[in-house]
């Protein structure tokens, strides 16, 4: 482990970041990176992270690392306030500052940054959604993921180890063919695998006929994978802060003040803050915010459980998901098997669900991977997912001028973080929906133009 740092640092020191780059023949890469960094530096000087930096700081016993973000006092006025300091909110702030030049903005978070579902999910990233609208949005997000660590100068450990969605029945296979075929025509790297190909890819998966629901095939998205969830929030926070965004933690919005049908500020536990735009990115708490202005949203908040095993030596290199037996698993870089379950059917804000869901999920994992039977479960927890009737998010303006909502990501929010922030930043900054966000207007529940992704989102992830 430590050897790695030394090697990377030396590599960077000896011939800089360009070396590997030259190998890869991407001549404009270095320039791009410099531009990006320059942009980041506009707000204030952001200490650049690198392996060499680590070595350098080790000489001063790491006493001189800069704060990753400031702890500012709220200003009297911001051009926009983002309510919710999770991954989506922080990404929104970052892109508003970076791409729309809005740097006099604040993120208001009632707890700590990235403390909600960003901190609790199972980190799966993919874009193999069925319907065009969803597929384009998630693919937009996936493309952003692919350059995000460099963009933010923060290693998010985005690991494109591929995602398998297993099929166990003939109808599963029809649905998979339909989705894969749609993905392909939408430019998304989905493939259809037969049972043998699945077995070759994941030798430890039980693909035998003896299984209660034998594996018939799968969809495979090689560009999918996982990332380090906390790092996403911290990376965005650090970069947004560097661009001048105020990150106000321990600050709770208690009211949204309006004047002449438009937003004019928010009441908080730290006093009133005036603003022209309020962008709500509060997941399970969106309903509470909506209620402050007398709005209702078609959302329900449910417990979603996740769990990890004790760390074991690497044995599973891809993400394996199954709607039918209802469970999914990947292995983290620490060695934990990261396992997801279905949502509990009842409303719940308790960050915990019922035990039978956990039992069933582990059964499902053993159905797929009988060799994990003697591995041990270390920890289980719950998040609060805000779900829409069609399993797609709401990214929407409202009838109140300057009030915007981005919510309802259900079980699939983490993978969307960059895309969600990016299109929402556009929507808020320009006061008109980003082209990719248009279909996710709240009015679809009235017109009936729902985007039913229950199939693609069938197992919570």
């Amino acid at each position, binding site marked *: 482990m430590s050897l790695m740092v030394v090697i990377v640092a030396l590599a960077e020191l000896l011939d800089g970041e360009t070396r590997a780059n030259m190998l890869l023949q991407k001549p404009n890469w270095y320039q791009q990176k410099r531009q990006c960094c320059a942009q980041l530096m506009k707000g204030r000087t952001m200490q650049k992270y690198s392996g060499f930096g680590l070595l350098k700081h080790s000489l001063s016993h790491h006493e001189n690392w800069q704060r990753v973000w400031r702890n500012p006092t709220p200003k009297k006025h911001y051009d926009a306030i983002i309510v919710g300091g999770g991954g989506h909110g922080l990404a929104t702030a970052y892109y508003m500052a970076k791409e729309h030049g809005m740097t006099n903005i604040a993120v208001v978070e009632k707890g700590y940054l990235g403390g909600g579902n960003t901190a609790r999910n199972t980190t799966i990233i993919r874009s193999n959604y069925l319907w065009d609208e969803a597929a384009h949005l998630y693919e937009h997000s996936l493309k952003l993921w692919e350059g995000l660590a460099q963009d933010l100068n923060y290693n998010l450990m985005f690991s494109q180890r591929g995602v398998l969605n297993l099929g166990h029945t003939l109808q599963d296979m029809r649905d998979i063919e339909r989705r894969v075929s749609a993905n392909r025509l939408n430019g998304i790297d989905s493939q259809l695998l037969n049972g043998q190909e699945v077995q070759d890819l994941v030798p430890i998966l039980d693909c035998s006929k003896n299984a209660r629901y034998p594996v018939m095939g799968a969809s495979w998205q090689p560009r999918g994978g996982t990332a380090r969830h906390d790092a996403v929030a911290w990376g965005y926070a650090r970069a947004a802060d560097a661009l001048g965004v105020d990150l106000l933690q321990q600050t709770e919005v208690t009211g949204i003040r309006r004047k002449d049908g438009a937003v004019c500020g928010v009441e908080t536990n730290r006093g009133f803050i005036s603003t022209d735009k309020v962008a709500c990115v509060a997941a399970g708490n969106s*309903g509470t915010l909506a209620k402050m202005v007398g709005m209702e*949203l078609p959302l*329900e908040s449910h417990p979603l459980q996740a769990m990890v095993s004790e760390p074991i030596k690497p044995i599973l290199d891809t993400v394996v998901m199954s709607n039918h037996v209802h469970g999914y698993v990947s292995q983290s870089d620490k060695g934990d098997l990261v396992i997801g379950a279905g949502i509990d059917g*009842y*409303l*719940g*804000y*308790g960050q915990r669900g*019922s035990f039978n869901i956990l039992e069933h999920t582990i059964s499902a994992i053993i159905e797929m991977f009988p060799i994990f039977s003697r591995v041990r479960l270390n920890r289980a927890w719950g998040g609060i997912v805000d779900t829409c009737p069609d399993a797609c998010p709401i990214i929407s303006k409202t009838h109140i001028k300057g009030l915007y909502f981005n919510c309802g990501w259900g079980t699939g929010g983490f993978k969307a973080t960059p895309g969600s922030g990016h299109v929402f930043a556009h929507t808020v900054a320009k006061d008109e929906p980003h082209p990719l966000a248009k279909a996710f207007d709240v009015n679809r529940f009235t017109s009936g133009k729902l985007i039913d992704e229950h199939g693609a989102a069938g197992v919570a992830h």
Partner: protein
Amino acid sequence: MLHIYCPYCEEYREEEEFHPHGQAHIVRPLAPESLTDEEWSQYLFFRKNPRGLHHEMWVHAAGCRKFFNMTRHTVTYKILETYKMGQQPSITAEDTQ
């Protein structure tokens, strides 16, 4: 794991016997054709999502197969009462405030 008093079987049963069915007391509009699309969508999709007391419908699926209502706290998961279909809750959020 909730422990639920079935008002029909008149005893506590394990959660596994039940299925939740969302918000209680949603009445189907008597004349759907007279509703605007907005009003119809309210009935179809918009639900209360309180952080606190919630009146919700459950069915004793593996037991007596009866639908019934429950007043439950969505943070503590405490069940304050269960009551039969057609009855009104005796505890509401206003009571506890």
